[in-house]
């Protein structure tokens, strides 16, 4: 076997020499963040938002539900950073506390549509045939509706609860996941590594779940991240028009809706601060996509 031992050095590209070092997952994340300042910013904002959701309720200076007629409609000041609303509640505290609710709704909704969309798309993309056709027409039908109106309809019909907001948001997002997974699975269906997996004794289902699906994750990460932004907007939007979360629960959509009435009379802070907070949250998730994709793609790990 000596004939074989002079193993060829990696000459493929002449550019990267993989033998130099091997990254663990953390140093890879660090690398992605270092390489792209926008991703770094997105991650910092993300940590901040998650921090607000986890610890916000314990850290805020005032009880978000406590009214005080004496302090109604005060402009932003050192005591009340974002001012106070018409019944004297502290807007800052309410905005921060609302993070947990809005984030939970969107994470639950996105998680649900990710799981259901992946299953449907995976089946359609791998087996094709009539299942694929039926599923595609079904998704087309969902997509044919104006999505927000569809969500409104679902919440209105099923009842005004937080769970129903989650279901509605999930349903309108399923087609995006299903289509993406379907396409990604489809192009890999006949790849060499898939055939090799079958030769190794994997059944079709195992091939799909263990071999093909993980390879669809990097593009899915972009979708998830963008979708988080939409889901937050959607949840806030439903609350804005009076569906879903009910006052006095702090929620960004309701706060903007309530604050809107006061803008004309000059009390701008009621709507602007929750709106800004909402914008930052959506912005963060939109920025986060590319970074997440890079982290989930082993090929970026050189």
């Amino acid at each position, binding site marked *: *076997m*000596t*004939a*074989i*031992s*002079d*193993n*060829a*050095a*990696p*000459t*493929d*590209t*002449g*550019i*990267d020499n*993989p033998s*130099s070092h*091997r990254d663990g997952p953390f140093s890879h994340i660090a690398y992605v963040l270092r390489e792209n300042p926008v991703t770094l910013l997105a991650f910092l904002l993300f940590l901040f938002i998650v921090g607000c959701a986890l610890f916000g309720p314990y850290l805020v200076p005032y009880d978000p539900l406590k009214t005080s007629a004496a302090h109604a409609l005060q402009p932003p000041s050192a005591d009340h950073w974002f001012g106070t609303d018409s019944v004297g509640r502290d807007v800052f505290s309410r905005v921060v506390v609302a993070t947990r609710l809005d984030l939970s709704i969107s994470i639950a909704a996105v998680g649900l549509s990710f799981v259901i969309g992946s299953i449907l798309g995976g089946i359609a993309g791998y087996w094709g045939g009539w299942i694929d056709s039926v599923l595609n027409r079904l998704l087309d039908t969902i997509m044919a509706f104006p999505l927000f109106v569809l969500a409104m309809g679902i919440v209105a019909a099923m009842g005004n609860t937080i769970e129903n907001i989650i279901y509605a948001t999930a349903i309108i997002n399923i087609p995006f996941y299903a289509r993406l997974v379907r396409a990604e699975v489809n192009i890999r269906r006949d*790849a*060499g*590594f898939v*055939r*090799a*997996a*079958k*030769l*190794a*004794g*994997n*059944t*079709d289902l195992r091939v799909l779940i263990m*071999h093909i699906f*993980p*390879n669809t994750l990097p593009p899915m990460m972009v979708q998830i991240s963008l979708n988080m932004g939409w889901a937050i907007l959607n949840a806030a939007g439903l609350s804005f028009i009076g569906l879903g979360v009910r006052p006095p629960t702090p929620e960004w959509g309701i706060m903007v809706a309530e604050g809107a009435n006061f803008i004309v009379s000059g009390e701008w802070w009621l709507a602007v601060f929750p709106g800004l907070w909402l914008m930052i949250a959506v912005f963060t998730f939109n920025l986060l996509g590319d970074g997440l994709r890079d982290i989930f793609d*082993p*090929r970026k*790990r*050189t």
Partner: protein
Amino acid sequence: MLTINNLAVSFQTRRGEITAVKNLSLTLDKGEVLGIVGESGSGKSVTSYAILRVLDKGGKISAGDIHYSGIDLCEISEREIRDIRGREISMIFQNPRAALNPIRQVGKQLEDVLRRHAQASAQDAKEKAIEALKSVKIRDAESRYHAYPFELSGGMCQRVVIAMALACNPQLLIADEPTTGLDITTQKTVMDLIRDLIRARNMSSILITHDLGLASQYCDRIMVMKDGEIVEEGIPSKLFTKPSHPYTRKLVNATPRPDDSVRCLLADEIKSPEPQYAVTEEVLLDVKNLSKTFKGKNGDVHAVKDISFQILKGQSLGLVGESGSGKSTTAEMLVRLIDPSSGEIQFEGENLSTIPSKVFATHLRRRDIQMVFQDATDSLNPRHTAQDTISEPLRRLAKMRGKTLIIRVKELARLVGLPEHLLHRFPHQLSGGQKARVGIARAIALNPKLLILDEPTAALDVSIQAIVLNLLADLREKLGMSYLFVSHDLHVVKLLCDKVIVMRNGGIVEAGDCEDIMSAPRHEYTKELLAAAPAPPKRKDVTELA
């Protein structure tokens, strides 16, 4: 005509600046054909891109100069070089399909080139485009003018690309691997066409290729590149008889010749004795009247038509054919990835063709028939490390776990010559040869009785091909496996196989002993295949000359 002095090209990458070409000097006379030969990563393509200043993003010419007919190509403006591209110097790219715009008729694309360089006006562009198509011997050029690239075969597309490159009568033609991915008979027609055209027009040409045999046949002078530098230069016959640089020697050695055995490809220092195979009389695989018909849009496609053959235990059978001959479909049926339309696959007396391929994945016989895939990169899951990949069949089919599994994986890695520390790498961190080894290790993990090799070296450099072929020969000797070696290259097949089957259009045209068929082919098609293969001088002759 073309002079390059001390050219250096560097690329800006994640790991800092990397020099792809360094200290490269060459001259090219009028009417001369220069071959630049090297393996992947040698910088041969980068050199050609530098001449036309079409380097990829991040690349720049960091030193040296390129003079073409008195013009310094490094100094002139982007606008001026655009005029030179196509009219004075033109290029044929590696993948003809990628070089053509997929949604535009090929004739129109030719017109674009002609009009860009003011070689034609709106009135006579069509006429001239058809003329250009005729010049590359495209039959029925008037109707092909309206064809889209996807409607043409690979060889046809390459002709169109050549027509485009030559449309404005350039003085210098750079051909970057012009026949990679083409069938061997098509390769010959395309190369002959290029040679005839440049001779007729008295052009100069640079042929960039990894195939020393091809270069020796078509070039006046050959330069061998390695790691961005020219290591040797000379006329083809001299390179083959008296290679002076060790790298050239290795390359010359690794190029399969008509009279080679598998060990000839290795350098003398690492040459081991010729393998002794134990071929028995026992029939391992008996294929009877196997057919496969696919349902196509325009009726049924008969991919494989009623073929029958046998493989004995320990024997190695070559399956040779060009694309569309049905050889890959045959391989997929035998490895039970697809179901045959009719016919029998008898494996050790058991009829496997009645078991649906879906069920076969977990069948007891699954471990007996394994396969090494054509493209090692494509056949490895990008999210699995080498170790995961090799363990997969052991986990699934042998239910191995824990320590025994790891011991077996390491044993396999040793067997295929994969250093242990590479086991934790992902495919993209491995070189082509290392990926091939991982694929082979996976295939032999369960000691299969029949190993199907689907062009296992097609995507590899010749020096790595030499090592992989020898590895396969060693493994066959050691483990007593039978091989079905699928390839388009008779010369490579001969190195590993005792018997060979030549397939064309789904049927067997000729079958017999390798030696017999190579020395005295009976069928016209086999003769054509043998004639089309680039023929570097025989090793025996070279030794006599030297």
